[in-house]
């Protein structure tokens, strides 16, 4: 889970920096910036936040978008040029290169309260959150390593970090934490 309430997915550094500055003025914390679409296990951990994404990357996350409304995720497209984007019911708003700072500010302001009421995440990384979800769902270290394409040693290392950060050791305790923080049903 991210410490902030917003995620930016865009390959251009200038776009990443510019949007981060505008979002900060709206008191929206950018928790993570990706140049490419993150892995499925990470996307599945998202809840209650704003996702700003390069419109050319939407197809890569489309299969997850059906649950975005239920998970209180606002999806905002960042278009590559000023040609109109075809209607896409998944997008809550679209930003264009010619938008002024004021226009971007006005477009983003309605979403600025997203994620403000969620519980503090104690700053688990995306990978740790993905591991926590699988541990809480009952998967073994070996199964987790296969699902996330990482070594068992790395899984154990993530689990140690999770325990230190949360102060919770047992699987039942981790499951309780995951339920209370909407990581699993």
């Amino acid at each position, binding site marked *: 889970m991210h410490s902030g309430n917003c995620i930016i997915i865009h390959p251009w550094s200038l776009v990443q920096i510019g949007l981060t500055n505008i979002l900060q003025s709206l008191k929206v914390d950018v928790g993570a910036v990706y140049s490419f679409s993150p892995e499925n296990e990470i996307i599945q951990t998202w809840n209650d936040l704003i996702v700003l994404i390069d419109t050319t990357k939407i197809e890569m996350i489309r299969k997850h978008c059906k649950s975005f409304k239920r998970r209180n995720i606002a999806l905002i497209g960042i278009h590559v040029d000023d040609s109109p984007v075809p209607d896409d019911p998944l997008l809550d708003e679209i930003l264009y290169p010619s938008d002024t700072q004021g226009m971007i500010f006005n477009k983003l302001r309605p979403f600025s309260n997203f994620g403000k009421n969620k519980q503090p995440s104690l700053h688990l990384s995306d990978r740790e959150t993905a591991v926590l979800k699988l541990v809480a769902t009952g998967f073994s270290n070996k199964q987790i390593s296969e699902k996330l394409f990482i070594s068992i040693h790395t899984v154990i290392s993530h689990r140690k970090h999770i325990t230190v950060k*949360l102060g919770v050791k047992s699987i039942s*305790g981790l499951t309780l934490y995951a339920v209370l923080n909407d990581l699993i049903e």
Partner: protein
Amino acid sequence: MRDPGSKKQALIEADDQLCDVLGRNIDLLPIVYRFGISSNMGQSTLEENSLNHKIDLDFLLAVLNTYHSGNYFPNTDSIDLGLLTDFLTKTHQHLKQVTIPLLGSLMQSLKIKLPDTKLTITLEQYLNDYITRLMDHIEFEEKYIFPLVGLRNGNRMGSEVKTSISKLKKLFSQHNNVETEISDLIMIILQHIPENTDIQIFHDILHTLSHFEKEQVDHARFEDKILVPRLLKLFGSKF
């Protein structure tokens, strides 16, 4: 002048007055009850109390000091295993008759204060599951482990006894889980107390869980450090 800070480190001795011992550590009161001492605590010493209530004084001192100080540990070979299992059984009864009902009543109060919230529902579920596992663990101990004490000469080695012996080592991992899960619950409650809520109910729950955790740790010390090693020593050659 009374100095609880320094006295807490001092060992409890036979000539200490019971009221003074309890004044130093009031958490020992339910332990004293388990020895059948529930009245006339006045000025009498532990030695006098043990005579009046027909209690083994050395065992009483060993138990009180173990619960009183995390650093103290009795001479394991001098402990009478029959007395120990009798005391541990009474601790189980206390758990079932006092601690668990108290936790249940506190959960009911929480449900009244915060009805139908995710926190209340999931905490209650966690606690119920935990208590079910704890009851299974207690049943396991009383069914398989404690009866071995009565057979400590090892003369009768029926299949049931062999089964019990083979389960002895399982106790260690079970104790570890019992303690860790309650410690985890305390941490999670601390992290999720809602804003603008009545803090007193959470304080009561945490206070009870904290006492419960301490008692579980001390209870497990008797079993893991005295009972199981002694039984393994007695029956080890029969594996």
